[in-house]
């Protein structure tokens, strides 16, 4: 199906089924409520087929361009039907299974993720591993010879694991080479979060929510056929996520930011200062949306995305912060003192937006990449 045709039919269906899909509580609601809403919406969309477009048939999909699922995520974000940050986690999890799991494992588990029957998380960051991912230390050791072992034992700690406390499985990066093997000695696994030895401790964020968690693995046994990709090939698995994260996930985030700016425009005073502040956020969102669109067209045309997506990352972070800066300036006191449901929503989102220049590679790391790889300035002093 063509993207434009899909969009038209999707929106017609979403209009017709609004009552079933709409959140049961006033937004933002609690994180528990937002997670439950997302899983309920996924289930309805999966049964109606929408959740299956853009995914391969061998994992329960209906095929078609990945842009179809991007359109779906953007439509849900623009209608406040699912939190885009949580919903778009599918884009960093399912492709990993499709590209790196055994066909049997992918066929078994991916439909559970798409249909909302399960929730998964991504275990990459560690206490000592922020922007420098290749320094990770969480160990996986074979139960016997590494080539023939039927299982691996995992011991270590992860942090910033989104939704770990709700998750059934985790795409986990582990150290399988020597401690100093950097990106060469990393292996990925799909780990059962209900297995003995897994402990989850949610972290309270600056906005009061507990979206992230610390996850501890104490000799957790993982079947060898749950290895994703090659032994010591985990870096390839991690890098494969980048194109998805920086195309589809961004487009969904962008749709949501337009939605939030529209709400601000409804509430803001109609004066010259507001016009300047709104115009500023809008021009940044437009630059970002334009950039993201060209990136996705390149991806759809078969290009391999790489360092140039650091531009997209810088633009998305700046536009997100500009949008919430506009909120704080034009709705004085709301972020700081408004205890209504809507005030709480703005406060949570304003505070969350401060992380946009930190997660997924900090603003500084992106500029280092741009200087080194795109401007070809050579190595640093």
């Amino acid at each position, binding site marked *: 199906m063509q*993207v*434009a045709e899909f*969009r038209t039919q999707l929106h017609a269906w979403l209009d017709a089924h609004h009552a079933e899909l709409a959140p049961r509580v006033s937004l933002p609601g609690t994180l528990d409520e937002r997670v439950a809403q997302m899983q309920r919406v996924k289930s309805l969309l999966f049964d109606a087929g929408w959740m299956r477009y853009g995914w391969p048939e061998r994992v329960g999909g209906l095929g078609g361009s990945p*842009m179809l699922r*991007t*359109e779906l995520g953007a439509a849900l974000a623009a209608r406040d039907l699912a939190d885009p940050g949580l919903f778009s986690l599918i884009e960093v999890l399912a492709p990993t299974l499709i590209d790196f799991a055994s066909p049997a494992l992918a066929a078994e588990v991916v439909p559970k993720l798409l249909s909302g029957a399960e929730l998964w998380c991504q275990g990459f960051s560690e206490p000592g591993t922020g922007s420098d991912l290749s320094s990770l230390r969480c160990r996986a050791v074979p139960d016997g010879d590494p080539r023939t072992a039927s299982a691996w034992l995992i011991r270590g700690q992860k942090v910033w694991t989104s939704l770990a406390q709700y998750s059934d499985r985790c795409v986990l990066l582990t150290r399988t080479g020597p401690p100093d093997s950097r990106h060469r000695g990393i292996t990925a696994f799909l780990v059962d979060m209900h297995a003995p030895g897994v402990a989850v401790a949610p972290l309270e964020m600056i906005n009061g929510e507990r979206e992230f968690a610390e996850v501890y693995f104490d000799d957790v046994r993982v079947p060898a056929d749950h290895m994703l990709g090659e032994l010591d090939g985990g870096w390839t698995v991690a890098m494969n996520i980048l194109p998805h994260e920086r195309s589809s996930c961004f*487009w969904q985030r962008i*749709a949501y930011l*337009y939605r939030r*700016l*529209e709400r601000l*425009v*409804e509430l*803001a005073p*109609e004066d*010259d200062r*507001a*016009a*300047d*502040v*709104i*115009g*500023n956020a*809008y*021009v940044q969102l*437009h*630059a*970002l*949306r*334009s*950039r993201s*669109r*060209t990136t*996705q*067209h390149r991806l759809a045309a078969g290009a391999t995305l790489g360092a140039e997506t650091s*531009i997209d990352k*810088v*633009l998305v972070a700046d536009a997100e912060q500009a949008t919430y800066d506009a909120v704080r300036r034009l709705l004085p006191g709301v972020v700081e003192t408004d205890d209504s449901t809507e005030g709480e929503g703005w406060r949570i989102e304003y505070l969350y937006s401060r992380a946009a220049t930190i997660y997924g590679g900090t603003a*500084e790391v*992106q*500029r*280092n990449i*741009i*200087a*080194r790889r*795109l*401007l070809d*300035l*050579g*190595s*640093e*002093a």
Partner: protein
Amino acid sequence: MEAAEREVLDAAVGDAIRREAAKGGAAVDEALMGLGWLEMLHAEPRDAIDCVFRSLGANAAVASVLDDVVVSALGTKPHADLAVLLPRYGEWDPPETDGLVSARAATAGAVLVVGRAGAELRASTVPISAVELCPVRGIDPDAGLCTAHVHGDRAAATRLDAEAWDAAVAVGRRAVAGQMAGACRTMLELARAHALERVQFGHPIARFQAVRHRLAEAFVAIEALEAALTAADDEPNLMTAALAKALAGRAARTVATHCQQVLGGVGFTTDHPFHRFLKRTMLLEGVFGSADEIVGAVGRRLLVTREVPTLIEL
């Protein structure tokens, strides 16, 4: 236009503009006319405008092709003898009697003038003798811009569609934004080359993170502008062109600030070419409205309509 065809066009136009730039606007105009500029503008306006204006910007060259772009958007057949009255500096309303004229003022026989008569939009062609011209020296006298005042009544005015002026502003903004993108790329290339060459404290300054991040910042601004230009070409309308022009103004400021800083002392002299691009982009920012004015106008529109249109889709 196919990519291969576009490459040939870029090379031909780039060569001509580089060769003739030092001789002034009339020589560049003649070279572009010789390459079939007016035919290209008619047959392949998207590529013609992007290629020619980008190259003008990249070489800080002067030409009066903006006249042809605006004239043609107003539904009149462009030719080398016809200039157009552009809006006053920093504005975009139909100029009526007072506005700007490009370097073509020196050679044109007539000027196309658009104004409002009540609710109606009207255009008339007035002889150059009826236009009082005053060269703008300002920050960039080489650009050849003049302020213009049109004398006398214009009984022979023809009626235009209500949207004709908006269309002319949109395509004019798109053209100038492309020119500014070209200039931004050259500024960054000059600063990059300097950073790799200039040694201080025993290293090329390109190795220092503070310098690298400035150049990265400039590059991000240019890439954002490029994306907005593509959006304006794929979905041409008043809003996408306005946003492209606003982003051009912003990019030029960001790029000029960081590149001038990286260029240090040498960028502060007229021995180095940087100053020409700085001054040209400063001047161009006010043609069809500055970034700040456009951003304010766009913001007012969003507040009045209480809608935030997404403008482009996948």
